């Protein structure tokens, strides 16, 4: 009897884990070329293959890795480099705040693992899963999505380092990056309040794009969230 209940439990975990992998698959289309581009660029800008490869699992954040190698090769000071990396990645503070509601109850090894695996994509697909599926094994979803992204990121960086630019530049695959973020918002396109927040954030990002340290991301995000707060206060007054 006990064995049986145990086996259904493992089955559940497997299922959730594979669901995480399945949900993140479409997002690998942009991750693969991006990883290759990073590998190629690291070498082109004069980093050793080892540094280029290791940075992909020490930092594990595409945009910030690109910022780091670009600034380093341009001879920027360490303070500027680390400042930029911090500002570019500060959006993870927000992801962390969102996910804390779902993963805080887990033990320390789990929290550390999922913290390390937190990327735009894993956050996005697994947050959607957490919000719709409240059960004790839901964190296996993020383990599946995060681990898949992690593995593919390492493999594609390595391919870029070893094989060079195997993807023709004419394909314009940088475009898949904004495309990814559009595809992650599709569930919100029918909700007017969310669309207003998107437009405000997008508009602010255009205005603030040329600020130093790539601060436009976090500034747009914060103004977007203030807008969300204000909309909700208005809605509350109306319903009262």
């Amino acid at each position: 009897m006990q064995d049986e209940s145990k086996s259904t439990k493992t089955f559940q975990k497997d299922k959730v884990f594979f669901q995480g992998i399945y949900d993140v698959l479409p997002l690998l289309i942009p991750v693969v070329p991006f990883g290759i581009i990073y590998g190629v660029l690291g070498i082109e800008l004069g980093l050793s293959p080892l540094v280029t490869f290791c940075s992909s699992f020490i930092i594990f954040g595409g945009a910030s890795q690109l910022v780091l190698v670009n600034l380093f090769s341009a001879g920027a000071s360490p303070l500027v480099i680390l400042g930029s990396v911090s500002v570019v990645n500060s959006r993870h503070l927000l992801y962390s705040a969102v996910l804390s509601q779902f993963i805080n109850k887990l033990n320390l090894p789990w929290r550390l693992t999922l913290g390390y695996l937190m990327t735009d994509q894993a956050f996005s697909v697994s947050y959607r899963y957490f919000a719709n599926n409240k059960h004790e094994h839901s964190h296996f979803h993020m383990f599946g999505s995060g681990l898949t992204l992690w593995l593919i990121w390492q493999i594609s960086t390595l391919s870029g380092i070893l094989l060079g630019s195997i993807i023709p530049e004419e394909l314009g695959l940088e475009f898949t990056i904004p495309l990814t973020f559009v595809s992650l918002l599709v569930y919100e396109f029918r909700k007017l309040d969310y669309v207003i927040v998107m437009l405000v954030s997008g508009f602010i990002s255009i205005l603030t794009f040329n600020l130093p340290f790539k601060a436009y991301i976090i500034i747009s995000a914060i103004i977007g969230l203030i807008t969300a707060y204000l909309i909700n206060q208005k809605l509350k007054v109306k319903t009262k």
Partner: protein
Amino acid sequence: MIWILVVTAGIITFCLRYSMIAFIKPETLSETTKKVLTYVPSAVFPAMIFPAVLFNEQGQLYYENNVQILAILFAIVVGYLSKNTLITILAGLIFYWLLIFI
């Protein structure tokens, strides 16, 4: 030098990711805060979309003959209709390729 930078950047990035998991106790979050947090994707992702589409490598706005704008609008329409991540990415990319190759 580069190693110190990479490792420090890695530690900073991990701390940013882990910070709120470490500090926030879910029961202390008010309903309003929880509600506002549901807007995080809508508040962050457009800042990764708009500049990537509208600015060139020199950091200047460009919209004349900018096929990326057309392709991203197409992807938005497809996303709105399909509510599907894979279809949105594929449709946007294929439409973009049609625009640049034909």
